[in-house]
């Protein structure tokens, strides 16, 4: 015990924290990209264009049915065979954002679909264009509905990013693996890795909740509208 806290932690934590920084970078970049992918796909899905909607459906299905680890390995090892060679970090960002983007497209689709049709008609009846209705009526409501779920996916992504260690990105998990192969202290070091993941996720979860609280306007806190929110993040989070 003494050795763990006063010898091993001071000795190995800095090295692990370097990895934690990479983990955060991976997660934030992937989340940003995933949000864009998810949003565009949701638009495609709801566009009424059979080609766009079909393509999105196929993409979502593939991501759902292929493990994230396999997607990452394909991007990193198989794509170079056809001339697309990405450094590990960016292969990781691509794989993670493709993964989360697919799930987010469903979240956004549900959120866009939950906006009352009557309110859109009211916009039209005031002389708004369809685009203005989307911008002024549909989007602001859908975004607020989606926030809690998107936050849940961010936390899931933070943890899933550990899979990127398989493609030689020196994030938290891989830094741990490297240490273990040099020291053979697997028990202690995995424990430290777990602590760091826990602290990051714990803090981020609190932050997300805070953001949620700030972004949830009064109209969603009162009355019947609140029931329109998608249910808990747990229910919608990737299995």
């Amino acid at each position, binding site marked *: 015990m003494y050795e763990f806290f006063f010898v091993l932690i001071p000795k190995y934590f800095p090295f692990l924290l370097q990895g934690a920084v990479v983990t955060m970078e991976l997660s934030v970049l992937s989340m940003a990209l995933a949000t864009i992918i998810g949003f565009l796909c949701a638009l495609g899905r709801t566009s009424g264009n059979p080609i766009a909607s079909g393509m999105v459906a196929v993409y979502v299905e593939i991501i759902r049915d292929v493990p994230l680890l396999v997607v990452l390995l394909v991007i990193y090892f198989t794509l170079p065979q056809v001339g697309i060679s990405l450094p590990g970090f960016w292969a990781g960002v691509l794989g993670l954002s493709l993964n989360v983007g697919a799930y987010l497209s469903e979240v956004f689709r549900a959120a866009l679909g939950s906006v009352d049709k009557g309110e859109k008609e009211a916009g039209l*009846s*005031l*002389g708004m264009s369809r685009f203005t209705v989307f911008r002024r009526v549909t989007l602001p409501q859908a975004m607020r509905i989606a926030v809690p779920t998107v936050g849940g996916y961010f936390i899931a992504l933070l943890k899933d990013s550990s899979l990127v260690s398989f493609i030689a990105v020196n994030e938290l998990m891989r830094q741990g693996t490297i240490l273990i192969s040099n020291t053979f202290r697997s028990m202690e070091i995995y424990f430290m890795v777990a602590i760091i993941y826990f602290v990051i996720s714990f803090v981020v979860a609190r932050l997300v909740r805070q953001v949620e609280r700030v972004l949830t306007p009064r109209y969603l806190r009162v009355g019947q509208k609140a029931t329109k929110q998608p249910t808990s993040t747990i229910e919608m989070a990737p299995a």
Partner: protein
Amino acid sequence: MIGSFEPQVPMSMPSSAVEPLLHVRALHKTFGENAVLRGVDLEIFPGEVTFLIGPSGGGKSTLLRCINFLETPTSGEIVFGGERLCHQDGGIFTQAPEKVVRAARAQMPMVFQHFNLFSHRTVLENIIEGPVVVQRRPRAEAEEEAHALLERVALGDKSGSYPAELSGGQKQRIAIARALAMRPRLILFDEPTSALDPELVAGVLDSIRALAEEGRTMIVVSHEMKFARRLADRVHFISGGVVEESGSPEQIFENPESERLKAFMRSIIS
């Protein structure tokens, strides 16, 4: 608010001298196999309050929704304020460009059965949305006008509330204020009291009555027969997708001619 009841003389009685504000000719609307409108002809004159009455499923609401193109008609002609919104061009249904339709809609906002207020915006924001976003009027001016409109529907203290915080009757009065803020030439009411609890109907009817008394042009789809009789300048009985009978409230309610209208009158009395 309720005020006295002297029947106001409509600002303009239908006559050949006055151009109708809205002209509907041979309007058809089919949903798949189901022909909901089968050739509706209708003229709405400025300053007139027109009631559309008739059995459910007869096409009243569809007619109203076709007039502002929330539903696209299948065939027929609609002329609003001298502007042709749709017509038959060599037998082919032709709709005016999107811009023209939008401009027309902005002049004939609709008050919906289920209010359809923007739930993410406050009462004030709901009312100024059209003036500011569609008509590009200065926000300050729109807000000032909105406050005045709120006073008129007796909800001056609700400007900062969200729709979810209001009763159905209050929501509908806000929806009326939102329509008025467009400075409309015509207001379309689609069963404005049908979704309300009985005790809330009166307040909404009062607001509509006040508009009628100032000579607004309105088309009201309603099941409130007493109200129609007292307020209407002209009543159209719509059944089976056509205007079955038209006339003054006295003609329609006291001397119905067609069998269908007689049957309808019997059914609502019993």
